Every structure is written in C-alpha cells, then in structure tokens.
C-alpha cells in the first residue's frame, strides 16, 4: 500500500503555525517595552487578553464544530494585538470584551482563520473604543526609572499621572505644546523613538516594534509594499501640509499598524499593485483623521477602512497573467 497524492511530492518548510509563531516572536520586543514603560499591569492586560482570545477560539470552534486550530497561534496574535491597543489604565473587562468580540464575531462568524474580512484585533479595538470612550482615552505617563522598581510588587495601582498623548497635544496646542512637554525637538524624537510617552501599551516604542518588524521582513513573512507605501504616504502628506513627518511617523500606533496590522495577510490585497494602493489608502485616511478628525488617532480606523476596500482592490488589481493580452 503506497501513499497516493497529487504532485508536488515535496514541500518547502513554510507552514501556517511557523509564520504565526514567528509573528508572535516579533511582537515580543514590543511586549517587553510595554512592561518596561507601563509596569506589570501591562503584562496582566496582555495575559488576560491572550487568554480570552484563546479560550474564545476554543469555545467557538467547539460550538461551530470546526477543526480546532489553536496551535497555529493566530488567536494569540489577536489577543496580544488587542492588548497592545489599549491604555494601561483600562479596566480588565475591556480587553476581555475586546478579545471576545474580535475572535467570536469578527473572526469565527466569518468562517475562522483565512476567511475574516476585517482584522479582528483592530475591529475589537474600535469596538471597545466606542463602547468605553472615556476609559479608552485616559492615558498614563510611562513609569520613570525609579517607578519601575514597582515591577516586583503585585500591588501596583494606577497612581501615575494622567496626561495626553503626543498626538492629542499636537492637536490641541500644536508644535509649541509638544516642545514644552518634551523639552527639545531631539529629546522629543528620542522619547518617541524609545517609547517614553503616553499611549497604548504596545504602540509607543518604535524601537521595539522596528526590531520585530525587521525580523518579519528578514524572514519574508511580511513584505515591503504595504508598510513602505503607508509610511511614505504619511511622510508625503506631512510635508505637503507643513507638519513634522518624523513626529507623525513615531507617534501614535503608526509603526505598529503599518508593520503588524496593515500587513495582515487575510485582510489585505494579494497583488503588489493592490498592496501599494492599500498602503497609500491607509496613509491617506490616517492623515485625514489625524489632521481633520475628531479623534486624535486614526491608524486603526484607516486600516479597518481599507480592510473593507480590500475585496474591491483585489477584484480590480490582478496580476497580468503571462501571455494573456489585456
């Protein structure tokens, strides 16, 4: 009795779980940075969120009688990204509801991994954002070096100062306000790059995120077109509208969004041309929302908006098949 299958009879090493777990590894620096800057509560949020995501995936999988695919790690990624998109002070039920919404409704109801139209983590973030707007927009300043000693203690309470995110300051007070907050321009860039500024726990440290993104790009898990066109569009619009491009690149969730969420396979277009258009669209909507919108931040919305457009883009931007005249 030989085994019978269709060709090819050999396979590259690629597998879904390998991709997903590499992705999780790439998120680790940002996770470490979140704990470094926001203390153990950040870790608790992440653990709670991931646990909810995994349990929800398991339960919905059982209910819908699907093959349980926990080992592929996609639920872990969703859980982590949901937590990354929250301020450190949110009550614990927020990541629970968010992860549940993301996995159960945005992912599993659409058919599970590979079939979802919207990025579960982003949809979850936007959902909880509108559900508990005050909680989701209360920002804490990162811990100082001395405050970090509290990491050891479990009785960490939220007694740090509430402030506004750099983007909110820029919106309300302009560049001058930012300079008084950070001191000098170079100091501001440095703080933003390292992540020493208020914001969602996973999005502040550009350094940690870029480390992870570098891993993903090197292992060819994500490709250049989307992040590059996204960031380039943001820079271009900044230059045209007279805003500081470096500030806009480093602040808010732009790096996290461009490298880790806009590049989500399932919800982004498949052809290079489509990817570039997708990135440009993300950049455009992000900047419109940042400069004109009512909320200071626009990355999640813009990517979600382009997710909705992705099927249209896929439909009209196909690769030219060799030998077929168009």
């Amino acid at each position, binding site marked *: 009795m*030989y085994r019978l299958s269709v*060709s090819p009879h050999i396979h590259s090493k690629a*597998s879904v779980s390998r991709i997903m777990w590499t992705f999780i590894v790439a998120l680790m620096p940002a996770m470490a940075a979140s704990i470094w800057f926001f203390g153990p509560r950040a870790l608790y949020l992440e653990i709670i969120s991931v646990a909810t995501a995994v349990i929800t995936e398991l339960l919905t999988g059982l209910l819908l009688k699907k093959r349980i*695919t926990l080992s592929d790690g996609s639920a872990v990624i969703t859980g982590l990204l949901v937590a990354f998109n929250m301020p450190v002070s949110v009550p614990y039920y927020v990541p629970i509801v968010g992860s549940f919404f993301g996995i159960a409704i945005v992912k599993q109801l659409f058919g599970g991994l*590979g079939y979802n139209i919207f990025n579960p983590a982003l949809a979850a973030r936007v959902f909880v954002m509108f559900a508990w707007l005050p909680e989701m927009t209360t920002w804490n300043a990162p811990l100082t070096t001395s405050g970090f000693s509290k990491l050891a203690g479990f009785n960490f309470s939220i007694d740090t100062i509430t402030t506004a995110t750099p983007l909110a300051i820029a919106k309300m007070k302009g560049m001058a306000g930012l300079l008084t907050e950070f001191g000098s321009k170079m100091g501001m860039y440095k703080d933003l790059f390292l992540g020493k500024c208020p914001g969602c726990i996973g999005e502040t440290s550009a350094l940690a995120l870029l480390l992870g993104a570098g891993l993903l790009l090197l292992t060819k898990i994500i490709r250049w077109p989307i992040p590059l066109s996204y960031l380039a569009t943001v820079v271009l619009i900044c230059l045209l509208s007279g805003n500081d491009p470096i500030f806009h690149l480093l602040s808010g969730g732009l790096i996290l969004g461009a490298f880790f969420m806009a590049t989500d396979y399932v919800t982004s277009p*498949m052809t290079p041309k489509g990817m570039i258009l997708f990135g440009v669209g993300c950049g455009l909507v992000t900047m419109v929302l940042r400069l004109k919108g009512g909320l200071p931040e626009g990355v999640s919305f813009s990517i979600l908006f382009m997710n909705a457009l992705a099927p249209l883009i896929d439909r009209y931007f*196909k690769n030219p098949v*060799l030998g077929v005249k168009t």
Partner: protein
Amino acid sequence: MWYSGLKIKTFRTGGVHPHEYKGLTEECSIINFPVPQKVIIPLSQHIGKTAKALVKKGDMVSEYQLIGQKDGKISANVHSSIPGKVVDVVMACILNYQVLSVVIQLEGEFKTGNLKKDEWEPLKKEEILKRIESAGIVGMGGAGFPTDFKLSPPPDKKIDTLLVNGVECEPYLTSDYRLMMEKTDEIVEGIKIVKKVLGVRTVFLGIELNKKKAIKKFKDRLTSESNIHVVPLKVKYPQGGEKQLIKAILKRQVPSGGLPFDVGVIVSNIATVYAVREAVLFQKPLTERVVTVAGTIVEKCGNYKIRVGTTVSEVIKEVGIHGPIGKVIMGGPMMGINVSTVEAPVMKGTSGILFFSEKEARSIDYSFYKPCIHCSKCLEACPVNLNPSMLSILGEMEKWEDMKGYHLQDCIECGCCSFVCPSRRPIVGWVKAGKALSA
C-alpha cells in the same frame, strides 16, 4: 570563473528553489538495465490518439517490431522493446489512467545486435522526418508531444530558433545531465540533424548552473560551431518548462493557449535530440531511455538505460530497496505522477523513478490542508503570474466554472504554488480537477 563573461539568464516571474538532491545520482554513469522478463507497453505514451494495436494475444514479436500503429496526425508509433510472446492486449492502469497496453513475455533471442549506421548529411528533410516518425519519437521531457509533428510546424509560422532543453530543473533527476556528459558528440550531432530539419540558423542550448561540468563540456565541444550557443541559466524551478525557457533565453512571450512556434521557436529536450539521432542514423525505434532511479531508501541509486515497458517491480528487484516504500513517483518530485502499483511501466517520457520512504511520503498529506490565509506566497511563486490562491479557493468550493475566469487553462501545473503554500493546500489537484470538470 570561466563562465564569467557570459550573461547568466533566467525567467523573471515566479519560480521556486526546492532542495536539489541531485548529489544522489549526479556522478552515476549510465548503466544498462538488465533485460526484463516481462514488459507492459502502453499504446499511448504520447499526447493525442492511442496507437492502433497491430498484435494480438499469442503473437510472437521481435525486438523493435512495430506493435502500435500511429493513428492520425497527433499520435506516435509504438515498438516492442524485447522479443517475446504477446501475453495479453488489455486495458491496464498506467500512471493512474486506463490505457490499452501490450504485455509481452520475454522469449527468443535478440536478433538486432548491430544496427547499420547511415550518414545523415545526404538525407533529405522529408526522409529524416519520416525516420523520426516511424521510430515513434515523442518529447521525452514528460509531456510526450510527437516529435515529427513538432518538427513540422505549419508553414505560416516562421521558425528562427531552436532551443535545446538541458535544464533538468526537477530535483533528483540527473538523466539528462548524464546523457550530456557521456554522449556529448552524439547530442551535438542530433542537434545538427534537428537544425537541418527545421532550417533554423541559431540554436541555444540552455543548461542550469548546477551542471557546470556539462556547460563546460559543451562549451569546449562547440567552440568550432558558430551557430550553436550554450546558455548558462540561473538555477530556478520550473526553468525546464517550455514557456519559461523561451522567456529566459529569448525574452519572448508565448501567448496564452499558444505553442512555442507561435513565437518562432521550437524547444526540444536533450533526451529527445539524442533519440532523434539514433532514429535517423540507425533507424532505431525509441524503445529505451535513460531513467534516474533515486531516493533515500534506494540502495543502488543511479542512471539506468531502461527498456520501455519495464515495470517498477523489476526496477525494485534490480536496485534494491531497504525499508518500506512510502511512495513511488514516475518523473520528478514536483510534477511527477505517483503510482499505486508496482506494475506501472517505464514509458518514453519517464525521466525518473523516485522511491520515497514512509516518512518522506507522509510528510505531504494534502487531506489535512488548512484554509487559505491569503499570504500571497503562491502569487509570488507562480511562473505564469496566476492567482493560485483564488483557484484553490474556487476549487475547494467546487466552483469549477468560475475558475476559468482566473485563467485556469494557462496553469502549467508546475506545483510551485503548492510547494510554497504554508497551509499545504493541494492547489495542483484542484487545478487538474478544474481543467477536467469545467470543460
């Protein structure tokens, strides 16, 4: 480097780099395979109509005797590869489909020991074509296109170039390489014959860079020939595909649904060229070919000159297998067909027989494919620039008709998409089914 002056070419769109495994058999010279006790000769080893059986049960046949008569324009003669008695003329399962086959039991003696050698230069084009036709030569790269038909393109197509395909891009296979190394002069003579038939000026011989010795050998041999050029090619699968080779060497694009002669090119495989020479010089029909037998569980891996019709069971007996066999593949691992029985015969287009161990075989289990995650790795790997992801999803949903909208017919079934797919989806399977069911 000695080839540094040359421009290394390759095709641009897609392609993959599977592990080569050529080391197993690369240095194995061609060995004559012992005469089998029984052969099963399918009457259709080519594209087109099955040949008409000329023998019936109980007939005695001699070696090289015509047993299947070409039926119509696209068809080919079939000859007996051993002398003996026709045991049966029956539908047999060959490469997973049923084909009328002649089963011959070895009996009697080989009479045709030495064939008379002709000179080919004085022969007319028509005479050469006739000899190719009566020898039943078909493309030996796998597709099995009747060579005489290929070499007589319609008069309105002007052919300016002959491409000789020495790429052998499939992993494991080294039969063409060994042929190139050991029969260099004969192949050059064969190229000249084909060149004369086609009346073309330029010939390119494409060889991938993992066969540096062969490139050097031909380079040295061809210094005096001004019109035959050796073209070293970057290693990339599926460069041996006709359309990819034309694109790589000539930068010409065969139109969708077209054939190479639509862009003035004829592509011929090394083994075919060699067989053409034998047919023209000795009037010897195509009854044997060089086959790579390889696999980690094979004791005597190597390149064997095997008679057409020899069954896999005879091959197993000869080369020795240790451990249980998981999979038997006729052809290369990327496009080869997996057979279920040891009664499957070697055919004119069989370039390799691979034996996979149980573990190797089980590592590919397409019944446990996962949903497509739209990673677009297959789009990058596809040498035709198709959207294999969509094809696979439509196939999964059994929307065969809709697959046509995604250029199903242009798929060359090279397997690059399945090879890179992280969800391990049997994309080629769905494409094959789509082609069969959407018609």
